[in-house]
């Protein structure tokens, strides 16, 4: 990653209120024929220029939905943003007219999706798909767009980029396809890159390559990144901070080091304990008992209480608030201190 054809534009917008991107108390429901599913229940997080925030959680915890709400690509209906704010560089995105939001999409905030095979259009060559953004959004000529597409494909280390412009998505391997996806997202040099489980559909060895590429690009281009994942292993090397989501809420928020050292929410603790470790060979792998809740009938009190080894009566009755633990750490648990200090569990 030493010589890049593309250099970042150095100026990141300096947000007047401190954060580049901020989600505040976001609530999203899905109104379907069977009822209302409360998918996002008061999510708040922020992102500063150049940093990487990992959003961690099981499928259905609402991490992708939050990201799609930021991008403005949620299907409404069935989705309905009932309250909350999403601020980018001081502007409230949810209050903007669609045309202005569209201008932000791709240019300021871009997104990489999980399964590049289905996320790329199967009937257009990849060069065309990368170039489309440049032609349509930046008004580049065909020739310029093609040249720039080759540069972008070089940037994401696709071998023989110029010869592969005319190839279709299905002619690429999974890892190469995801690189195309990344090149497409970087086409307009966005300030924020949202990577929605970018490595889930890939082989383990390829996963590492893509994560390395993302980390390098993020550093070289000085892009802030939201990394959405359910894989704790992916997060450790790349992220600055971690937000753990459960049932549409952020249950724990901490910098990577302290979260790994001493998780302050029983759910995070459960996730960390369920990672197989070499020094525990032969032992039974620990799991979090039970299943994630049905979002149409979220349990009373703390939504994690039916699965929680620390649960008391108060957890059934009272919804826990974010408990501030210092160093910017929060945990939505009545017993956050105890959980953090309980090294045995």
């Amino acid at each position, binding site marked *: 990653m030493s010589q890049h054809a593309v250099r970042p534009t150095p100026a990141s917008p300096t947000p007047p209120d401190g954060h580049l991107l901020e989600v505040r108390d976001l609530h999203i429901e899905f109104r379907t024929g069977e009822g209302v599913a409360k998918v996002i229940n008061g999510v708040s997080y922020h992102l500063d220029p150049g940093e990487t925030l990992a959003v961690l959680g099981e499928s259905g915890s609402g991490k992708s939905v939050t990201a799609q709400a930021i991008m403005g690509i949620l299907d409404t209906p069935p989705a309905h943003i009932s309250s909350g704010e999403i601020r980018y560089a001081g502007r409230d995105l949810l209050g903007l007219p669609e045309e202005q939001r*569209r201008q932000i*999409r791709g240019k300021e905030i*871009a997104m990489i*999706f999980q399964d590049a095979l289905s*996320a790329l259009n199967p009937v257009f060559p990849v060069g065309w798909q990368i170039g489309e953004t440049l032609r349509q*959004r930046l008004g580049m000529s065909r020739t310029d767009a093609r040249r720039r597409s080759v540069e972008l494909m070089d940037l994401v280390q696709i071998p023989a980029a110029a010869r592969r412009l005319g190839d*279709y998505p299905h002619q690429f391997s999974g890892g190469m396809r995801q690189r195309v996806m990344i090149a*497409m997202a970087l086409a307009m040099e966005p300030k924020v890159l949202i990577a929605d489980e970018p490595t889930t559909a890939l082989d383990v060895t390829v996963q590492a390559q893509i994560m390395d590429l993302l980390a390098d690009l993020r550093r070289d281009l000085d892009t802030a990144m939201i990394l959405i994942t359910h894989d704790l292993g992916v997060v450790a090397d790349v992220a600055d901070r971690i937000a753990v989501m459960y049932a549409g809420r952020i249950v724990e928020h901490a910098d990577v080091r302290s979260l790994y050292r001493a998780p302050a929410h029983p759910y995070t603790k459960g996730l960390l304990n369920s990672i197989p470790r070499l020094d525990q060979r032969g032992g039974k792998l620990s799991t979090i008992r039970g299943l994630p809740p049905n979002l149409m009938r979220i349990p009373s009190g703390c939504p994690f209480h039916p699965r929680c080894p620390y649960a008391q009566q108060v957890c059934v009755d009272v919804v826990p608030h974010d408990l501030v633990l210092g160093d910017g750490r929060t945990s939505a648990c009545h017993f956050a201190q105890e959980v953090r200090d309980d090294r045995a569990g």
Partner: protein
Amino acid sequence: MFRFIVRRLLQMVLAFFGTTLIVYALMFAGQGDPIQALAGERPVTAAQRAYLTEKYHLDATGVGGFFYRYFDYISNLLRGDLGESLTGRSIGDILAAAWPVTIRLALIAIAVAVIFGVTAGVLAGIRRASVFDNATLLLTLLVLGIPTIVLAPLAQYFLGVKWQIFPPTAGADPDFFALLLPGIVLGSLSLATALRLTRTSVAENLRADYVRTARSKGLPNRRVVSVHVLRNSLIPVITFLGVEVGNLMSGAIITEGVFNIPGVGFNLFRGIRTEDGPLVVGIVSVLVVVYLVSNLVVDVLYAVLDPRIRYE
């Protein structure tokens, strides 16, 4: 691709011999005395009988005789000689007169299906569950539910006879206007199917992941729909229409019959009714070729439209 086409052409040769053999066998198996059938009620003299027996190789009997006559027929066919119908007219001449009429009718029907069916299908797909979508669903179900044998006479009676908007029958050498009503009736079935197919395909593709990607690139909605969604949605529709062109080219027996259009279907039906073996086998042999070629064209077209399909 080249190898695929060559292989398909070889398969077509087999299919051609297979189908013509079956049709030939069916048409002549049931006949008692072909010479008497040819002459009808009139008596046949010994000289005539001897001449015809010689001409059609009727002296060879059994399975061997059948194949002898079949290959004799095929070799004539391959030289472009379709033979004569029992009425003594050259089958080649009959087809040369009938085909342009059928092709005109087919083109009107396809135009109707494309212009109205595909357009309405795209709109219904975009506005799924809207009033327009439900209305077209009801109408297409109605059209699909009514067989042509009912729809054609109804259209003829109301639009042709009662209100006299269109000529009720076409007659010999019909012009464009005379073929318009039959064309619409014939096309209505393709229209309904094309509409349903387009609607489903558009609705499905609108939910595809690549649409989300296109949106997140910040493309305007009309570009997402008109470029990304349409290009994918029309693949099955164009395939269907291609097959449909092949079907329509082979004539529409009922529509041509009701509106008295001297097309291929009309002649084929007359041949079947009058037990005119040579005419039926002649027309069917040519139809088989038309059908095989149109299917090959559709397969090739499919590969051109969808880069994921590569025939090797």
